[in-house]
């Protein structure tokens, strides 16, 4: 059975992927990129690392669909939550732009 043959993936390879991705994450925050780009890159890297842990260390790749459904549920809820909070976040952020500039200004003196 194919699933049984793949029961133990190459754990050391996954370990190195995770270690390298962590180094890349730390390198990204020092890159001369716009803040939004850095944020998107970091989110993508974190999700990639989380997927590696879930798929190979937690064996989700080799499990039944039922467990996969259970695992995906919180991801769907979290995504929904982010979209529920974003509109309010953007609205308040827009209103506080002036305040942010005022708060940031004295620090430069």
């Amino acid at each position, binding site marked *: *059975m194919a*699933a*049984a043959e793949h*029961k*133990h993936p190459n*754990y*050391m390879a996954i*370990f190195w992927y*995770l*270690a390298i991705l*962590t180094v890349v*994450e*730390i390198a*990204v*925050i020092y890159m001369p990129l716009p803040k939004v780009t*850095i*944020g998107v890159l*970091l*989110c993508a*890297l*974190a999700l990639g*690392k*989380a997927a590696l*842990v*879930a798929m190979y*260390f*937690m*064996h989700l790749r*080799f*499990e*039944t*669909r*039922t*467990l996969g459904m*259970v*695992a995906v*549920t*919180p*991801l769907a*809820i*979290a995504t929904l*939550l*982010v979209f529920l*909070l974003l509109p*309010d*976040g*953007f609205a*308040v*952020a827009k209103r*506080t732009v002036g*305040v*942010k500039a005022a*708060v940031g200004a004295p620090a430069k003196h």
Partner: protein
Amino acid sequence: MSPSASVHSAIEPAESPLTPESWGKLGMWIFLAGDAVGFGVLLASYGGMRMTSADWPSPYAVLGINLTAAMTFLLICSSVTMVKALEWLGKGDRAKCRIFLFFTALGGAIFVSCQAYEWSKLIHEGLHINGNPWGASLFGTSFFLVTGFHGLHVTGGVIYLLSIIRYVTNRPSPAASYNAVEITGLYWHFVDLVWIMVFTFMYLI
């Protein structure tokens, strides 16, 4: 899935894939899904508070990431020792399994110790749950709440791992404890997975 379960599903592929031995695994996954929602709510509300704040400090400048990067690496290492423990148990070597379980618990204990050191250092620098010298007071509140909640999970995981070492020792055969060790592994890898998220959202971004 234990070797016997895979043989079973090979004979009867049309049957429901959830065999009685994987009920425990299903139970742990449901618990973890609930726990993930808990962490998801904490991180989403952190994002919401940060977006709507005018003077949120830059986390990696204030908190410092050298120690936490090392702690991240430590948790990844302890995840590897966890899968190695399960691998050795699958091969029937209980002694090696116990050693790797012990190293996993040790990794967790060192992680919590580093966190205690980090907390005391930051508190000394002025980061408190109700205020800090760098900006929004909710910065400190959310930092202690989220990292504290994760730290409690690691502490619980260390106790869980130590008790499972005893369980492996007392069972009549290595195969009899395989399922329980795999379920413990699920919990431990989840704690690692959550830290990946916490490290990214609370320290790096």
